[in-house]
């Protein structure tokens, strides 16, 4: 296999090949950089390329491996991400680069002195950062239609959105530019772009991964997590990211609970149900068909309804609006015209919300978490689509669901928002159906701290051929053509 073919084979294969010295990290980084150079003018996933840094680290890794008397073993524990190129949403600090979080305003700030903790952890596992990725300004959006950096285009159809706010992260993985990317998810910002770009995304339990060295949006709801093209790659990356950090006050300081060795255990014994009620009412025909496809493959015939879902979604909306508005109040006072026009007025409105609304929203969130815990006493996995529809055209203002016309941008998160509101771990897994041209994701949801279960189910579905994340190719000429 040449380096470009190894790049397309995914993170686990790359690390294995690099550890065995079948291909050098330098060759792989060059292949990734060449892919980015060839495809990104059309996709616009990247805002920064860290070529010099990446090639320096690749050379150092190659020297280290060459100095070993025998090729390093291919075991999972030895540099599990050796030589794997990855990129991070541009709200992660990168040493020497200003963290902009998709904004114009932050461009005036000095460059970061350190990498974000999760970038450090990826590189400690052998991965190599090749750049920073586009996003909705300050993570307030579901489309990555960024007015300052331009929209990120969906690699499977360049006229459509990549989803957001981690749109660059999902698009870079879908286009085969990198096999892994990091993003953040407050109300759906990993799961929505994963769904629309047809890749795997993991939003771990709230408080699992420390957010140290990242630009916040809503401290009460912000999560970080990885994107990949296979469930195994997602698990390996997630394991590399785990571990507490006292600098993040919301971090639960859990010990590392490795999941990669567990994901082949299959679904035997797991009690799985689909979500009805609210979730049934907010999905279009393709989302419904994707859920049916997954449920049939898993032999699921049980459906449950959670109480008060609409209230949970409204609570997440208010908390996000208020915390986001308050965070940016100083700049809203003096530089409102420099904000992204698509989110500026929402930020200003959020800064004005009465305290009683937010306090009630936080109480409803706690109430809903208790209700769901009760509902999950005898079920391990819940399934629902990740987005109500597949990727919409860039600039679309409306979508139609069940005969109702809804505003396109906020409605993309209508199925993700109630779940992140109470911090449950979710894997968004991509489904391609015969009669549809674009992918759509299904959320695999478990009780808190059971990331192992969501990844087990994702892995089982992938092994059955029910979910998959092929590199975008024929329609756009992206991927293998580069």
């Amino acid at each position, binding site marked *: 296999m040449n380096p470009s073919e190894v790049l397309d084979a995914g993170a686990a294969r790359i690390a294995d090949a690099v550890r065995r010295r079948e291909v050098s990290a330098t060759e792989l980084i060059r292949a990734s950089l060449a892919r980015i150079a060839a495809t990104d003018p059309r996709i616009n996933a990247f805002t920064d390329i860290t070529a010099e840094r990446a090639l320096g680290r690749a050379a150092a890794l190659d020297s280290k491996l060459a100095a070993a008397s025998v090729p390093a073993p291919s075991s999972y524990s030895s540099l599990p991400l050796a030589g794997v190129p990855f990129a991070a949403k541009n709200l992660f600090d990168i040493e020497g680069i200003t963290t902009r979080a998709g904004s114009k305003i932050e461009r005036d700030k000095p460059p970061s002195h350190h990498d974000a903790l999760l970038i450090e952890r990826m590189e400690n596992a052998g991965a190599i950062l090749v750049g920073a990725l586009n996003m909705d300004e300050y993570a307030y959006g579901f489309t990555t239609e960024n007015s300052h950096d331009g929209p990120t285009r969906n690699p499977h159809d360049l006229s459509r959105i990549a989803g957001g706010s981690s749109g660059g992260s999902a698009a870079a993985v879908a286009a085969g530019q990198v096999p892994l990317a990091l993003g953040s998810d407050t109300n759906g910002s990993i799961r929505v772009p994963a769904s629309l770009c047809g890749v795997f995304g993991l939003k771990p339990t709230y408080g699992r991964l420390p957010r140290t060295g990242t630009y916040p949006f809503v401290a009460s709801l912000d999560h970080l997590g990885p994107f990949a093209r296979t469930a195994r790659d997602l698990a390996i990356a997630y394991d590399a990211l785990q571990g507490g950090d006292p600098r993040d*006050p919301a971090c639960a300081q859990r010990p590392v609970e490795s999941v990669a060795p567990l994901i082949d255990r299959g679904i035997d014994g797991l009690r799985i149900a689909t979500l009805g009620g609210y979730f049934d009412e907010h999905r279009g025909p393709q989302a419904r068909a994707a859920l049916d496809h997954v449920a049939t493959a898993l032999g699921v015939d049980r459906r449950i309804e959670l109480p008060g879902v*609409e*209230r949970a979604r*409204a609570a997440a909306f208010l908390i996000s609006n208020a915390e986001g508005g308050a965070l940016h109040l100083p700049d809203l006072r003096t530089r409102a*015209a420099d904000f992204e026009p698509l989110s500026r007025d929402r930020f*200003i*409105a*959020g*800064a004005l919300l009465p305290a009683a609304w937010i306090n*009630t929203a936080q109480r409803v969130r706690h109430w809903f978490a208790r209700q769901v815990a009760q509902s999950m006493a005898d079920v391990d996995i819940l399934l629902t689509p990740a987005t109500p529809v597949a990727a919409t055209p860039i600039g679309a203002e409306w979508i139609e669901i069940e005969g109702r016309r809804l505003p396109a941008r906020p409605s993309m998160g209508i199925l993700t928002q109630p779940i992140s509101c109470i911090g449950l771990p979710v894997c968004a897994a991509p489904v391609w159906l015969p009669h549809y041209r674009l992918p759509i994701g299904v959320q695999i949801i478990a009780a808190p701290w059971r990331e192992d279960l969501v990844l087990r189910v994702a892995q089982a579905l992938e092994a059955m051929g029910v979910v998959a994340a092929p590199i975008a190719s024929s329609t756009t000429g992206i991927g293998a053509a580069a």
Partner: protein
Amino acid sequence: MTQAEIETYVDAAARVLALPLAPLHRPGVVHYFGLAAAMAEIVGAQQLGLDDEPAPVFVPVSPRAIPLPAAE
């Protein structure tokens, strides 16, 4: 809230926060505040008990340099 009540509140709250509302931005702000008000109505419809405390729980911060006293 009526449209007039929303506009009155938005203008007053913005003044309290010393947050200037540009004429270009004000209609959008009023629109989104109205949307938040609708969300607040949905949230407010939930009956809550005294034990339904707000979700965030404060965690006191210990000075890490000071070790815990050894158990007797």
